[in-house]
């Protein structure tokens, strides 16, 4: 049933596929960024075609930039820095990976970064260890250097709440993967931190009229609000009247139905559709398939699980995969 598509070097710490699954970027514990390609699009055998050292420490996470903006990746390193690398040709030389931009923040480290393309503009949300998140916008689509800070937000639903200095261990961001250009840009953000108010996942929507980001929904029941969030995933919507967002905490994976049209108070209507249990430990990653019908998850128990809803709207684990040598 399974076939091997790539063999990774010793010390690989993270992997990331590009939008069409034709390129693989990997990062290593000693700062090497490797790119894997296949000889033609029909093939599913990938070999390393370039390898460069981008950092002295380890690479923690790699995210591809949407294809409209070229072949480029964002790398988060273990010192908390974020850097953008682009494959370009210079001086008649063959294509090479070059550094475009580095993002530093005093006193805090970068935990997570995700890109969203909204109406021909590229946005990036970066979450930091102090519980803040910054939204950047690319000014010139041909210059991955020119980023403008659009907003700085704190992941709380109520702006008056106060708390001390936060310390976050991880953050999860998922953009609404919309193709529909009429919708306002939105993403969901959750933290794994020592500050209860920050943790629960909030849906952030860009308010065009006031040109600011506002939290419109909190994806947690009153008793679960302080639960640390391990992963979030916003499902592609191919025609549902509501959005599907999966949120993983230590209680399991919650599937939320979020209605897009806000009520009179400006809040979105929410419905907790299911709580999926079965994981012993932490959920590492959640990925929706293209149709938004199947959710794949991986976690500390090493298992890969597939979840689907049946015709009655009940979510069930349909299959699981256990790695064995």
């Amino acid at each position, binding site marked *: 049933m399974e076939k*091997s598509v790539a063999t990774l070097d*010793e010390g690989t710490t*993270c992997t990331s*596929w590009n939008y069409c699954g034709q390129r*693989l970027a990997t990062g290593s514990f000693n700062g090497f960024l490797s790119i894997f390609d296949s000889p033609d699009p029909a093939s599913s055998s990938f070999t390393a075609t370039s390898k460069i050292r981008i950092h002295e420490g380890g690479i923690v996470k790699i995210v591809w930039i949407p294809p409209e903006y070229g072949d480029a990746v964002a790398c988060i390193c273990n010192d908390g820095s974020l850097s953008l690398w682009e494959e370009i040709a210079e001086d008649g030389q063959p294509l090479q990976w070059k550094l475009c931009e580095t993002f530093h923040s005093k006193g805090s480290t970068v935990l997570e970064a995700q890109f969203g393309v909204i109406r021909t503009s590229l946005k990036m949300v970066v979450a930091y260890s102090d519980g803040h998140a910054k939204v950047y916008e690319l000014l010139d689509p041909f210059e991955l250097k020119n980023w403008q800070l659009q907003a700085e937000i704190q992941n709380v639903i109520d702006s008056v709440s106060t708390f001390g200095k936060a310390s976050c261990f991880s953050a999860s961001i998922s953009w609404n993967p919309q193709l529909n250009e009429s919708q306002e840009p939105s993403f969901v953000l959750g933290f794994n931190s020592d500050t209860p108010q920050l943790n629960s996942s909030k849906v952030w929507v860009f308010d065009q009229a006031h040109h600011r980001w506002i939290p419109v929904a909190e994806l947690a029941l009153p008793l679960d609000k302080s639960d640390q969030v391990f992963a979030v995933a916003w499902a592609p919507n191919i025609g549902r009247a509501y959005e599907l967002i999966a949120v993983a905490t230590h209680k399991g994976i919650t599937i939320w139905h979020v209605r897009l049209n806000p009520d009179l108070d400006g809040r979105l209507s929410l419905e907790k559709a299911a709580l999926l249990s079965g994981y012993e430990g932490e959920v590492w990653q959640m990925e929706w398939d293209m*149709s938004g019908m199947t959710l794949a998850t991986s976690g500390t128990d090493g298992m890969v699980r597939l979840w689907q809803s049946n015709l009655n709207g009940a979510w069930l684990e349909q299959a699981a995969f*256990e790695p064995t040598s």
Partner: protein
Amino acid sequence: MPDVAADSAASASGGALVPFVPDTEIAVVYPLHHGLKPPITRVSISWARGNNLRVSLLRNPPYNSDSDGEIGGKVVEVNLDSGAADVRESVQWRRIAYGSVTPFALLQSRKNSASSLSKLQSSPSPFHLDWWEHVMEYSKDIKELLGNPKSNYDPLIEDPKEVLKKGEEPTSLKAAWELMEMFYADKLCQSWLPERLVDWLADYDCLLSGDQPTVHSKLVEFQGTLVTLQVIEDDPKYWEVISSALAIGWLEIVVKLLRLHGSYQLDQLGHRETENGLVETVAVLISMMPRFRPELKNGKLGECFEAKPDFMKAWEKWREQITKLDSSAFWVPCHHRQTREGLKNLIQIMLGNTKILCTATAHWIELYISHFLFIRPFTAGLEGMYNLAQKCVQMKPMSSPHKLLRLIIGIIGENTEVVLAECSRGFGPWMVAHAIELLTARSDQADILLHKEHDDIGGISMEELHRLVYAQVLTSHFLTWQIAPVYLTSCMKQGMSLLEFLLYRQPAQHNQLLLKNLEICRLYELDHVSSNIMKVYEILKRILDFIYQMNTPSLVSLSSANSLPVAFVDSET
């Protein structure tokens, strides 16, 4: 793909004949082989084409750069679907996928024009075919893909001892398709459904021999010993297989076997005249069996009657002849005990002795067929058929019924949801997506059920859901992804969005694929998608512009502003 409908079937079939085992709460766990030295410290996932999931398995990075000489990890791809059950070869499956595109698209376009026509005029036009006739045309095309009809090729010198002819290996896919065709689409066979089922079993009984024997498997076994048998009529197996074959109406095989009887041999005829007369009389009676059906295929035995009164008369007369033979005085001088008992047994079968029919058949479906042939030839209506099936299942219970038998129960139980669930579970997404056309061919009820929009699955109908699921199976393979748009565009609510996601995820840096994407956009008028594809592509131009600034070559005028800069530069080192 996990079956989307199985659970609803479980609830829908409460109190049914064959209760479904509801999906257990615990999902099946499959091993994922990677060949790495444990431990695996990190597992990350990414969806690839369609239902392919790529799993990266990473080992712990070495401490202090002390290499242990092992590779650091593997990426494996898992395919989560099988397009159609029974089709083991991916080549064969792709052939079915390719071949069903045209019939499916044709039927959809007919459906669209029929619905726009019915809006224009209130009464159906006499110049147009009824809808079920269009569906039958579609069904004929699909059936051809699932296997060719048995060849009518007859060898010049027929082997007298070849009882079973070797035809093509039938597939359960085709068997299931034919079942649904006869019950749901083919209006012409509605008056003689029981006999139609007799034909069906004749073609597909061999598929049912799994853990339990069938009449077919008994015959195959007997055929193997046939050449070694000296005095065939002394062997109890001989009489056993004859009565089994007779019970399910394989008359030509019965007659052929009877004529292998030793009394036909020239040197025996003299002293076994009476015995031979009895064997021949039974053979003749069998070949004259009245059949309540319009016609029989070449080489099949029996006399056909389409009108019920005619059949009744013939049936009564035939039974009278059998009864008369049963009580005739010729049995006394027949000294061969096995022949006498064997023939008497056949007579009991023809007279419809339930107990003997039950012994002669193996599966409940065989017993069911024997009831149609010898006890209740007038069984009509699905309710009557269902009650009879219930009775037969009680007489021959099975621990794990074959998927075809579960499908039959669903059909005659008039439970569309069960039929869909069985199709999906037993025969895969291809089957459901295509068989829905059969289910709705004549039934308004099924039509309503399949087109009802369900909120729990995002406001789409079952029909659309199954098409989306099948389209996603198609996208899993790089040779079949480009036929997915045909199915997606037949999905009113969510198909186009899924198509956009699909196109967005196609690699743009390869010329041929890019042109294919643009062609699909052109066909389905997705201009905004094609402009996005071009945008992804144009990014490469930026690189070229850069080179252009660096060194202006002499022929730069050739590169026009609108041209596609082709910089598929593989970074092979």
